[in-house]
């Protein structure tokens, strides 16, 4: 498909385990974003990648959260030593280079993470 692809779609794990969430952006999109939506909450920004620039990590809630983007395409969000409050839907979005002007972000369907 041509959209943003996220895997897995659902993940259930025990408290204290590490998890990796994957995002495959739309081909040609240089900007990639991670958000999360906790139950009953709006979407919350986590981290942003744009080309070869240093990522904007200002939204990461703790040092247990990290993300990488290899080769300017696929991104992995890693949560170490998961806690129950990490349970949420993690959404990835991508957009064209915003140096071209304002660009809408296009979202994947998310990974629903449940910490037991």
């Amino acid at each position, binding site marked *: 498909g041509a959209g*943003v692809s*996220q895997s897995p779609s659902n993940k259930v794990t025990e408290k204290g385990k590490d998890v990796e969430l994957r995002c495959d952006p739309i081909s040609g999109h240089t*900007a990639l*974003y991670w*958000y999360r939506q906790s139950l009953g*909450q*709006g*979407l*919350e*920004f986590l981290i*942003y990648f*744009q080309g070869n620039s240093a990522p*904007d990590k*200002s*939204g990461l809630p703790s040092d247990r959260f990290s993300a990488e983007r290899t080769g300017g395409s696929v991104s992995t969000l890693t949560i170490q030593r998961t806690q129950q409050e990490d349970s949420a839907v993690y*959404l990835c*979005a991508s*957009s064209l280079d*915003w140096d071209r002007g*304002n*660009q*809408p*972000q*296009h*979202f*994947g*369907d*998310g990974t629903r993470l449940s910490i037991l």
Partner: protein
Amino acid sequence: DQQVKQNSPSLSVQEGRISILNCDYTNSMFDYFLWYKKYPAEGPTFLISISSIKDKNEDGRFTVFLNKSAKHLSLHIVPSQPGDSAVYFCAASASHQGAQKLVFGQGTRLTINP
């Protein structure tokens, strides 16, 4: 401190009528605004956007209005159709600050009644 607010958690409209969804913001640095539609178990789908240099943008049945002095934007859907039933999120960014990270409202659940 919620910078983007959607004060109506839900809205019910009859099919064929106009749906009006509202959004207020507090950060005067926001200069790009978007509306997304979300179905259950799916990611948000981009609907329409507006830059702060405009006060109206129209795309088919969807029109977004921006009132910068009031820090208010609205989405009009006319005529409303049953498939429009979903949760609608407004979002804003301060693009000149570098990253276009979006700040979202809490969402409004729109129900279109036949």
